[in-house]
């Protein structure tokens, strides 16, 4: 009798071991918090995507589609958005209703929350909740980018009961997502477990473990030993190793990155658009993309390749050092002109791209002096108010709506290049307000044409979003533009 019980227990253990499936992912960055409303870090939203849901979300095609709102409609004047909610529950057992949506939006708009995304919601004047499954958001002026904000990580819906009690979402998040938060050991791992009654159906895997592995070399080694099922950062130089290994799959999805070398247009000869165009012509962007970023598509303006907002007639500058020299001579730039080029650490790819720019500029008689600065220093002294740089290399992450990328350009104080052009500024301001899609496309297209001509950046291009998985991993994907991880359909076979 006793034996039989033991055997039964052992069998049960074996069965449960066989069926409990854990997907382990190595991630280079780390969230600062899991409270979606007090951060702007991509890493935070990469993880929080699995724990929370948003009213609408981006599909694989990059188009915004219903999510917690099973349907929505926008009034003709663009001033009222009506959302109809699905039936689902938060991880704490309370049901999702319109009060939760109202409380969430009010929290992000509250000054006390100090959300870095607060300004995106400030056009909201009131939120009506006529019944538990309907929310009507009223705006003071049309804001076509509102849906994009609601589809982004910071649009996550939180339970109103917990909001009222000042609950610590940052360390112990509670949402409606497909995975429940289990634990977070900082600098080590976040563990999530799947819920069976997720409104879109239960995930395929039972558990997701996200390991924080800043070093891409260690990510690769962990893939080779089978410790990681997915590794989010593969160095350009390591791609052949992954590709030639039959147990691994190299995946490349489109990214929303616009890789650029920004120029400080207030400085010296850089204030002359001819000089900035010459610098564009002096650099072979395709080679920079291939060597530093593992390949990509060149761009000719400040919008990622493949974006529906990018007018087809804007061509990349191309590589023409002869013409670059002519333009520089025309502008009276002396040979040996020296530029200050701070580059952000720990972004090795940007540093490598900067070194290549230095070589290309030397060919046309410009001497770029590289300084490696820590990320916080870069944010504060280069990107921030001090703007202490002549030229620097950076990637602008994807945005669901072009206003997220372009707001501030054309106004001297509104962007770090100091690009100052009233016409562009007016076009961008109109794009943020006008609801008509065709008109938006027209004004943003014109603004992007002007940015191409003014060339406040060297436009490198858009790389792919490269990551590696074990060959048996299927259905895992990374949201285009937002770059967040979606484990809901992931499985291991």
């Amino acid at each position, binding site marked *: 009798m006793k034996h039989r019980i033991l055997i039964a227990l052992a069998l049960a253990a074996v069965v449960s071991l066989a069926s409990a499936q854990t997907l*382990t992912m190595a991630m280079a960055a*780390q969230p*600062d*918090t899991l409270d979606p409303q*007090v*951060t*702007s*870090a991509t890493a935070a939203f990469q993880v929080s995507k699995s724990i929370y849901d948003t009213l609408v979300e981006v599909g694989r095609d990059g188009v915004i589609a219903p999510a917690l709102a099973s349907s929505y409609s926008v009034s003709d004047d663009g001033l009222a958005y009506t959302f109809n909610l699905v039936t689902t529950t938060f991880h704490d057992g309370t049901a999702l209703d319109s009060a939760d949506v109202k409380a969430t939006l009010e929290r992000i708009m509250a*000054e*006390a*929350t*100090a*959300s*870095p*995304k*607060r*300004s995106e919601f400030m056009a909201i004047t009131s939120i009506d909740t006529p019944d538990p499954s309907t929310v009507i958001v009223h705006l003071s002026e049309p804001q076509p980018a509102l849906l994009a904000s609601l589809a982004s990580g910071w649009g996550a819906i939180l339970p109103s009961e917990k909001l009222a009690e000042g609950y*610590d979402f*940052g*360390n112990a998040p509670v949402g409606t997502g497909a995975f429940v938060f289990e*634990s977070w*050991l*900082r*600098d*080590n*791992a976040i*563990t999530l477990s799947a819920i069976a009654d997720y409104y879109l159906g239960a995930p395929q895997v039972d558990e997701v*473990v996200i*390991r*924080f*592995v*800043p*070093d891409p*070399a*260690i990510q690769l*080694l*962990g893939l*080779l*030993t089978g*410790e990681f099922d997915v590794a989010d950062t593969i160095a350009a130089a390591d791609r052949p190793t992954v590709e030639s290994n039959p147990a691994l799959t190299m995946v490349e999805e489109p990214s929303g990155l616009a890789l650029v070398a920004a120029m400080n247009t207030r400085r010296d000869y850089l204030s002359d658009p001819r000089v900035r165009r010459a610098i564009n012509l002096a650099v072979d962007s395709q080679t920079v993309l291939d060597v530093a970023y593992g390949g990509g598509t060149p761009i000719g303006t400040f919008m990622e390749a493949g974006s529906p907002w990018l007018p087809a007639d804007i061509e990349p500058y191309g590589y023409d050092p002869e013409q670059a020299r002519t333009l520089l001579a025309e502008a009276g730039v002396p040979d040996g002109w020296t530029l200050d080029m701070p580059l952000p650490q720990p972004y090795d790819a940007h540093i490598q791209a900067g070194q290549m720019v230095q070589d290309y500029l030397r060919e046309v008689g410009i001497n770029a002096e590289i300084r490696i600065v*820590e*990320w*916080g*220093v870069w*944010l*504060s*002294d280069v*990107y*921030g*108010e*001090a703007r202490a740089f002549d030229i620097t290399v*950076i990637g*602008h*992450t994807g945005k669901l709506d072009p206003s*997220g990328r372009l707001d*501030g350009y054309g106004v001297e104080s509104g962007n770090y290049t100091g690009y100052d052009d009233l016409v562009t500024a007016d076009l961008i301001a109109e794009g943020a307000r006008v609801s008509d899609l065709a008109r938006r496309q027209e004004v943003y297209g014109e603004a992007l044409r002007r940015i191409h001509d003014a060339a406040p950046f060297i436009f490198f291009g858009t790389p792919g979003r490269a990551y590696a998985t074990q060959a048996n991993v299927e259905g895992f994907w990374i949201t285009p533009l937002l770059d967040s991880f979606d484990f809901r359909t992931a499985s291991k076979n």
Partner: protein
Amino acid sequence: MTRYLLGQLVSLVLTLWVVLTLVFLAVRALPGDAATIMGGIDSSAESIAEMRRSLGLAATLSDQYVSFVGDLVQGDLGDSIRERRPVTAVLLDRLPVTLTLAAMAFVISIVFGLALGLAAGLRPGGFFDRLTTGFATVALSLPEFWFGFILILVFAVQLGWFPVLGLPPTGLSLRSSWHMLLPAVTLAIPRAAQLARLGRARVLEERSSDYVRTARSKGLSAGRIGRHIASNALPGIVPLLALELGGLLTGTIVVEQVFGLPGLGATLLGGISARDYPVVQGVTILAVVIYVGVNWLADVTQLIADPRLRAPA
């Protein structure tokens, strides 16, 4: 002796105060603050200013210093800006990992380093002597992370005996502490080399002293002479062991990075990049307390080990 130890205590407090004032100023002298970092490249100047206000970073430097010292006197290290919980809780979470790593490395480096050093010193020019010299040259001229990678390549990737990462997702426990053997060996290698060289030098020094010559002329066996040499050579190494511990603390920063260990080193680096002032201050204060405390312990140990020091002055 009591007076001596009390004097040490006073100097500990003074050291702490100087260090924490320096750290307080140094972290704030770094360009950018937590609001800059949290804002990233997508936030407007207004929203960053709003965050700065709500995080309490808009206060003047002197106000911040007064409240920092005031809280500290009451044992309060403040709240982590990034983790939004008390720094003491953060430190308590992280300390066991670093202590385990440092303790394992300390034991490994003492056992291997001193054994090699003694063996080398007792027979200059012999096999162990050449081994020790070779090992020390390699170990001290190559960086820690290089050894880390080599150990991972051999023992984790090739042999599969260890996982690549230093700890399982559940963190440190009795069951998972063996995972930390690779990082501990990585950390121990340069320390063992240092101790081996030092042990060797001390033994050689003792070998040429008068009592050894006397013992030898009396016809004492090589083994007994060796024991005499060891017991005279070792106390001189104790203060250096304490210095080694200081080196271990800084070494953990690098090793924790390579093996992805969630210890104090990782916390410190993360704290600096996030401009999480209270965390950087907390880790530094803890490190100083440990470092000064260990040195104090070394002094006491030496007092016990070396009777000459105990003589009334």
